[in-house]
């Protein structure tokens, strides 16, 4: 499947489904080291996104239109840090995808723009036990896959795989950013909920293109 507007819509719908399915897991992860609202907030946000997609009279013309709808809806409806963080990520990604189809370099640009947005908003870097620890290796892996001549779908698969590994790698870390940082060393041994939700979302980006 080509990475086009239909892909973007499919990615968003799959994202809503996976977040709904993992709602309780995300709540539990966040309850352990945060304020416990991550699963509920993201689920509410993506449900609102799907409702807005369903209400459109005609399909969006560009991938960026789809991602901008996700961005503004998440910002308005999530109600936790994930709202502005993912909202900014999707907004930057939308600006990088003002087209109806992405080649491999275009997919790299999308992932890199999303990472840039999260870093700009959250001012986190790698190793601080945040969603940056999933997005950053995802962007790196996307670059490598594209350089190696991979298809857009290959690039998304590589990004998803790296995000999953990056998320798992947050487990031993002590949080130094976000609500979990108040716990310091007590946050060690737990998977970061934001890295986990990033892993879930990028897995669906790859699945929608497979």
């Amino acid at each position, binding site marked *: 499947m080509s990475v086009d507007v239909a892909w973007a819509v499919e990615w968003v719908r799959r994202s809503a489904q996976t977040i709904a399915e993992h709602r309780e897991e995300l709540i539990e992860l966040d309850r352990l080291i945060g*304020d416990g*609202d991550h699963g509920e*907030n993201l689920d509410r946000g993506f449900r609102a996104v799907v409702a807005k997609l369903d209400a459109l009279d005609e399909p969006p013309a560009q991938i960026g239109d789809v991602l901008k709808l996700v961005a503004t809806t998440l*910002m*308005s*409806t999530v*109600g*936790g*840090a*994930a*709202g*502005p*963080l993912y*909202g*900014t990520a999707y907004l930057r990604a939308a600006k990088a995808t003002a087209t109806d189809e992405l080649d491999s370099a275009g997919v790299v640009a999308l992932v890199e723009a999303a990472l840039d947005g999260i870093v700009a*908003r*959250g001012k986190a870097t790698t190793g601080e036990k945040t969603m940056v620890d999933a997005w950053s290796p995802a962007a790196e892996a996307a670059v490598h896959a594209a350089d190696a001549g991979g298809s857009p779908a290959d690039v998304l698969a590589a990004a998803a795989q790296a995000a999953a590994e990056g998320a798992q790698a947050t487990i031993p870390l002590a949080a130094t950013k*976000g*609500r979990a940082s108040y716990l310091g060393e007590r946050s060690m041994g737990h998977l970061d909920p934001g890295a986990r939700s990033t892993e879930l979302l990028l897995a669906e980006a790859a699945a929608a293109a497979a």
Partner: protein
Amino acid sequence: MSAPDADRAFARVALVLVSHSRELAAGTVELAGQMAPGVLLIAVGGTPDGQLGTDFDGIERAFGQATQDGRSAVVLMDLGSAVLTAESVLDLADEDLAARVRLADAPFVEGAVAAAVTAHGGADLDAVLAAAEGAGRMYDGDRPSAAHDASAPPTDDGVVRETRTLLNPMGLHARPAAVISRMLAAYDAKVTVNGVSAASVLALMKLGATQGTELRIEGEGPQAAEAVRVFTTEVERGFGEI
């Protein structure tokens, strides 16, 4: 969000208080408002359905209301997502609004009180922002020195000095501290009490002055004599509390 009474607001700078909690935002507005009547204070607390969280659309509306009629606004936020959401709103706002809104890196309650009292004195945007952000530094270092020699004789250095005993049973708490700070804003004078700036509500409160404390009041500047006189008068009448 509370409904601001825009007709009564006259200070040039409004405050927007963004909290995860509806009660915390509303309570901080109540606290700061008591010390700074006439400053537009807008609470944005919790999610639209009353849960803990932040409300992007509510913050957007509050920024719009706060900057109406040519006012500018200082924004205080409590925790992570309140900061991130306020920043996101500002990123997406039009340039004219964004130029008149400043996000304060300040403790929520103390910063709100300091900013509100400063705004009440007619200060501009930068001064109100500085008051909010300066409130965080109140917790650094020691309390002001109690060893300062209270019996130092007046000198010919142009400093007006008076000493009065604090009569208020509750000490120099928030309300009288705000009265002093507000009152002195009207005078072109730099006034200190026991070595701290009398323009700062938080510095005054941090003195921890209890009933019976000797207050050494010193004023410098063109209107120092008048400023010190109104100050001592207020101390003598117990700030209307006795």
